């Protein structure tokens, strides 16, 4: 019995030390964001702030438009999540529950698209966005202007649907019993009604998982917004942070305040909905 208790302590010690090492960057980020300029330049550095400068956050927001960046990221992440849920549930349902010719081909295509790496499509995606006809000064062939570049369209539309979401919903709809839809059909319900009112309420765990993973990926996305936006008022927070760092290399407390704003929403969301995150990432195994 005593040996077992000791082993438990060793376990907690190992995990505690390991976990602490993992969160050191987060702690250091928050501590730095609360230090005064003199405090940051002090040598040797202090671990804790001399005085806790909470006004750094307000100062950072005044110094760079982090508020705008934050709002942009939030709007885009919500947009992606809503659109992905709407389109992918419908597609997943159709692929799972309705037999039609070519269904297997469509499903295999979705699977193949899941495995396409970002860099096998990103350059033409950029060209397509730039050549969008009738937008941004383009003619009907998509020439002459900037198309969708530097617009809300390009930030929201291309990344709004993921093959992974379709795949996950298809698997969930597939597992529902056939009797449910048959009963609803006898009651005179149409196919869309069965989808929306009978089946979709039963795949709530999948909805939660897809919503969280989509939101997270959208919030953290960097490369696409970096490529397609140059206007400051359209920057998302990740791109805004990188730009701020290049411009103001030494404003570490503002930079850390900005980083805190960019990471804390995801951390809070994760801590509240850990179960769904874990489920989603463990079953998918992919980002």
């Amino acid at each position, binding site marked *: 019995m005593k040996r077992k208790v000791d082993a438990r302590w060793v376990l907690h010690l190992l995990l505690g030390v390991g976990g602490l090492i993992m969160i050191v960057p987060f702690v250091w980020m928050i501590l730095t964001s609360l230090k005064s300029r003199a405090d940051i330049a002090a040598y040797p550095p202090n671990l804790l702030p001399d005085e806790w400068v909470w006004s750094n956050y307000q100062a950072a927001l005044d110094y760079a438009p982090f508020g705008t960046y934050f709002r942009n990221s939030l709007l885009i992440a919500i947009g992606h999540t809503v659109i992905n849920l709407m389109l992918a549930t419908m597609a997943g349902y*159709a692929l799972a529950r309705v037999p039609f010719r070519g269904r297997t081909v469509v499903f295999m295509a979705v699977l193949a698209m899941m495995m396409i790496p970002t*860099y096998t499509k990103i350059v*033409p995606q950029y060209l397509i966005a730039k050549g969008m006809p009738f937008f941004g000064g383009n003619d009907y062939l998509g020439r002459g202007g900037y198309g969708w570049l530097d617009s809300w369209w390009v930030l929201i539309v291309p990344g709004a649907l993921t093959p992974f979401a379709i795949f996950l919903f298809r698997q969930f709809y597939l597992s529902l019993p056939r009797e449910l839809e048959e009963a609803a059909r006898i009651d005179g319900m149409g196919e869309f009604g069965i989808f929306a009112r009978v089946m979709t309420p039963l795949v709530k765990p999948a909805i939660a998982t897809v919503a969280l993973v989509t939101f997270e990926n959208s919030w953290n996305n960097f490369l696409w917004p970096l490529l397609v936006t140059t206007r400051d008022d359209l920057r998302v927070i990740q791109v805004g942070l*990188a730009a701020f760092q290049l411009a103001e290399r030494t404003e570490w407390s503002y930079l850390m305040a900005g980083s805190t704003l960019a990471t804390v929403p995801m951390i809070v969301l994760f801590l509240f909905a850990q179960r769904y995150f*874990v489920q989603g990432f463990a079953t998918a195994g992919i980002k």
Partner: protein
Amino acid sequence: MTSTLESVSVASASRAPRPPRRRRKLGAERRRAAYLMLAPSVIHLIWWIGIPVVATFGLAFTNYDVIAGTVEWAGLDNFREIFADDIWNLSIWHTVVFTFFTVPVAMVIAVIIAVLLNQRIKALAWYRAAFFMPHITATVAIALVWMWMFEPNLGLFNLLLDWVGVNGPAWLSDPDWAMPAVILVSIWKGIGLKMLIYLAALQNIPHDLYEAADIDGASGVRKFFAITLPMLRPATFFVFIVSMIDAFQVFDQVYVLTPDGGPANSTTVMTYEIYRTAFGEFDISAACAQSVVLFAFLLVLTVIGRRLTGKDGDEA
């Protein structure tokens, strides 16, 4: 309940040679609804994934002039051009080095953490959250924090090294230390997801295996090597392949920590070169050729992974 039974019998009747008219009409209606529900997704996927993928391969074998808008066949010229570029070849080497050090180290740490977490202990969710947090937070934001920690004079690393009497390097601006620094950040960030997949796999190992080992008086370490690791083999292959594919596409932390390919191009990777070729030099065709090379690497890795996993399944 009666209606359910009836519907089942109707459904089986529909498989008879001459289906009743009502069923056939219903089938057509359902198909129409399905097409409507699928249409937006299919259009979106073709538009933003299907066409771009085909275009990448097409452009890699042509000369595309962005400004004039002309396209002409170029055969393998683009590939000759990119492999004549020393920096591109260097970037392939850096990608391999990055992957070689990042993936195995993160995997070893992840499997150990997963085994430790797979016990019935208090505060499990908190420990798991601590290890998983780096994965869900934005790479850019957290890379900036690491950049601050790597700061040569005021950063946390050199402060700690100073305490133990070591003169720390300039890290990100030192050509010898920039890549190790990027690798360290990537290992830290990569542990979480691997741990989670291992944790899910561990829960599928039957308990009686361990009970049998307990009866034989096996030690914890012995059980780990004799039961846990062999049972985790499919998961290990899966994690390995997914991580390799991820590591080959590393971009965000490299871009933020070591801008412009790092000191003396010491951290430039394939994705960064694609980015530079396409959006710095606007040489679209060469960038697509580079993308095809990256794709070929990923394809080979995936095929090897499939083979290994498949074989493993046959043996079992």
